[in-house]
């Protein structure tokens, strides 16, 4: 008998629609897989079997099997609202908070008849690169349980890698889709800022946050982008630019496309296997008739400090609403101020508190100009660097990370942890689309990812190139 959980999302929907497999049958295969593996990997914060099964049964009754995701189980990162489900964003402060509305991406997934299977674990408020900052439990890397799955969308990456679901939704503020995708050996797509609605995504850093899919292959990423991309009247930062049929364009050739290799990447220490993987991807692209050019992003190394000022600044404001008054965790105190401070100090974890404090400082009187404003100007310079680069090339290629996955509890100072994102963060600052695709393994057998960065709103070409280099 065929193992449905081995199929890609695209194949699964196709077979359900052709009648080859049933919706409930599909769902039950995944639930079985989850039962087998979940105890060890712990990717889900919430699974609602009953609601999912009920939905599957409803879909099985339908005569017309419509919708791009018909009958496909989908996992959603827990920082995204799904009506009636808890949404904790991996934080104690949101324990018990029940979503009273659907995020726009969830609405789109439901409209296309996808089934919401559950909510995946993540670093608290998406702040982290290992999913160890979840207030509830760490998720493990399915490839090797001693290792982290990356983060913050570690649960979403791990559940796809573990075949507990064919496709999952994550969010990427500084690499939170691409880094875990690379660590777990799956595809992770961060669309252009403004391409996918953030409505319903619990904000970390509003000017950087983007929702995107984690999937088994590039085709699945294209499928999900078809579902979630586009202008949304609920999100003033979405952009009304034509959405392509991303599945349709996937197969076309990439002959003559110019691919840039960023010179400054080699200023950083990069693990040998990752350099090798990058090189072999470059060779593949040459083989497809691409022209490889060396280009420069002179201010690349300033992306990290710029990001770690801007993101916490916005976060310090975004997370002010968690005051225990209307929802979520509430402590006590003799008077209001004490109640606030107790609620927030007990409700947030260390990394979140650190970032709130850094951000509050960076915006405060006397420091605003030197920190927040300075960082925002540097951000402009970095964006201009990319703009110059894209005058010469159609896409950029670089490693997703400088190393493969690290071990759980491998002592790292916060700053050391921040360095994990050196190759993903610049992309968020510039708002560009990027994708991480698996490119082999290191000698320990841990996955290696290579990252492609496209022009603004040109996900179509980006996905096509990625499709050509995936294994």
């Amino acid at each position, binding site marked *: 008998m065929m193992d449905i959980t081995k199929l890609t999302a695209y194949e699964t929907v196709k077979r359900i629609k052709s009648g080859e497999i049933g919706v409930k049958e599909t769902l039950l295969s995944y639930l079985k897989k989850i039962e087998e593996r979940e105890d060890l990997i712990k990717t889900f914060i919430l699974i609602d079997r009953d609601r999912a099964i009920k939905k599957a049964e409803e879909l099985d009754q339908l005569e017309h099997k419509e919708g791009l995701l018909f009958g496909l189980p989908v996992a959603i990162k827990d920082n995204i609202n799904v009506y009636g489900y808890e949404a904790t964003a991996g934080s104690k402060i949101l324990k018990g908070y029940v979503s009273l509305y659907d*995020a726009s991406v969830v609405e789109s997934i439901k409209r296309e008849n996808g089934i919401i299977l559950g909510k995946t674990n993540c670093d608290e408020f998406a702040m982290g690169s290992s999913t160890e900052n979840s207030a509830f439990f760490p998720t493990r890397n399915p490839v090797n349980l001693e290792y982290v799955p990356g983060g913050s969308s570690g649960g979403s990456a791990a559940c796809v890698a573990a075949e507990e679901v064919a496709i999952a939704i994550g969010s990427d503020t500084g690499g939170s889709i691409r880094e875990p995708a690379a660590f777990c050996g799956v595809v992770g797509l961060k669309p252009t800022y403004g391409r996918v609605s953030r409505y319903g995504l619990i904000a970390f850093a509003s000017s950087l946050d983007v929702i995107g899919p984690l999937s088994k292959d590039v085709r699945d990423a294209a499928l999900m982008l078809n579902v979630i991309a586009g202008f949304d009247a609920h999100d003033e930062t979405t952009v009304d630019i034509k959405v392509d049929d991303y599945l349709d364009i996937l197969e076309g050739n990439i002959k003559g496309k110019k691919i840039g290799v960023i010179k400054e990447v080699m200023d950083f220490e990069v693990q040998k296997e990752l350099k090798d993987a990058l090189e072999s991807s470059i060779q593949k692209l040459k083989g497809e008739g691409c022209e490889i050019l060396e280009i420069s992003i002179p201010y690349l190394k300033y992306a990290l400090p710029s990001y770690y000022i801007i993101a916490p600044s916005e976060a310090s404001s975004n*997370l002010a609403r968690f005051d225990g008054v*209307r929802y979520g965790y509430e402590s006590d105190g003799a008077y209001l101020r004490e109640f606030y401070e107790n609620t927030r100090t007990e409700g947030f974890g260390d990394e979140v508190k650190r970032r709130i404090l850094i951000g509050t400082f960076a915006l405060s009187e006397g420091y605003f100009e030197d920190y927040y404003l300075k960082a925002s100007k540097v951000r402009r310079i970095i964006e201009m660097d990319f703009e110059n680069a894209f005058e010469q090339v159609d896409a950029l290629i670089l490693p997703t990370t400088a190393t493969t996955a690290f071990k759980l509890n491998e002592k790292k100072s916060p700053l050391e942890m921040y360095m994990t994102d050196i190759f993903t963060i610049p992309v968020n600052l510039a708002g560009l689309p990027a994708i991480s695709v698996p490119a082999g393994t290191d000698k320990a057998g841990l996955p290696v990812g290579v990252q492609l960065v496209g022009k603004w709103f040109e996900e179509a070409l980006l996905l096509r190139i990625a499709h050509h280099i995936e294994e």
Partner: protein
Amino acid sequence: MYKPTIGLEIHLQLMTESKIFCSCSTEFAAKPNTHICPVCIGLPGALPVLNEKVIEYGVMLGIALNCTINEVSSFYRKNYFYPDLPKGYQITQYAIPLAKDGFLEIVTENQRKMIRIEKAHIEEDSGKSIHTGDITESEYSFIDFNRSGVPLMEIVTYPDIESPDEAYEFLNLLRSIARYLGVSTGDMEKGALRCDVNISVSKDEVMGTKVEIKNLNSFRSVKRALEYEIKRQTKLIEEGRTVVKETRHFDEKDGTTKAMRTKEELNDYRYFPEPDLPPLIISGDFIEEIGQRIPELPNQKMRRFIEDYSLSIDYARSIAYVPSFSKYFESIIAFTGKPREVANFIMVNISNYLNETGKDIEEVPFGKEEFKELLDLIDSKIISLNIAKNVLDDSIRSGKSPSEIVREKGLSQVTDEDTLRSMIVEVLKENEMQVRQYLAGKTKVIGFLVGAVMKKSGGKANPDLVNKILLKELETLRQ
């Protein structure tokens, strides 16, 4: 001489159906927490979407306040913790407001004065905290988020105001303008207009210390608070003591201001650009189009009433500042002419009627036809001005036409000379002393005698005829 320097900060609620960043209703006095949604109670993940009407109204008001409208303006977050502020920040305009550099010209005691406006920007209101009992002693406060996200325009003046009367008049004019534009009711009791004042008192050229006063619930409170504060600060200075820079609360009951007892809060709002809202760009065409929709404003109307109709400042202002009054007034004089008489009837008789009945002027059952009839009765000397007032009062209340009333009650003037003469003869007999005085050269007493005749006739005697006949009779007596 101590000179007060006053600046106002006014929050005006823009009269939209829905809130500024979400589609919840702005209905006043609804059941608590029934007009709320993910956006306006700050549920995680919710995002603001700007209401176009807020921009339209904001631009309109900005133009009416003679401001420059910024074609590009931006939104910021003002960060602070307060339980009625659901997101932990207020979305407001900061670096670039919608409107800036305007002015309003006010008239007090025949003096014209320019009050400059620094800026007018749009922002969201917060919810409402209700404290049971003393704010410092009750164990809990209660929060209603219905107001959270109601659109406001904040108007900040330069400290050009120099007296409580000027402050009062500025507010009065501003509210009237808002009502003419239909952008705000300006009702203070419904929170649609709120005003904080800054005031310092100084001798000579040295600027005094600025004190902020909050909790002003009516125009009268603004005036009273300022009057009190001027006295308080003047006294401190005279006694050689210092005025403390602080925020004070106005106490409605005893008319004093009191230092707020709150703990010294860190005031660092950490303003930064609101990443969820790109800059607001409005075209010159849009601004132009809005500008063309602005009607004649109350201060222009007032000036016109004074210049063209010779109304007194008080009457001109009272009619011009209330849109329904001026609409009524102008519709009537367009038909009847005689603006001074009509203004008089409106400000005395009709105002009384409205006060008594609590009705609006639109409901007054005395339109231009009735006015015409009334004025014609006066013109053709059938009734006197005094009788006319009674006729008007009667007509509004009974619904009968003025001529009907004059006929039924026999109010038409006595113009029959024989009737008048016999009345006059009687009066002369009854007032021998005055007659003697008159004959002795004290011609002033004629007024007294005319009055006596008018009284005898029940006010119906035609005053001109009375005069004429009376003089003739007195001359006869002289011979």
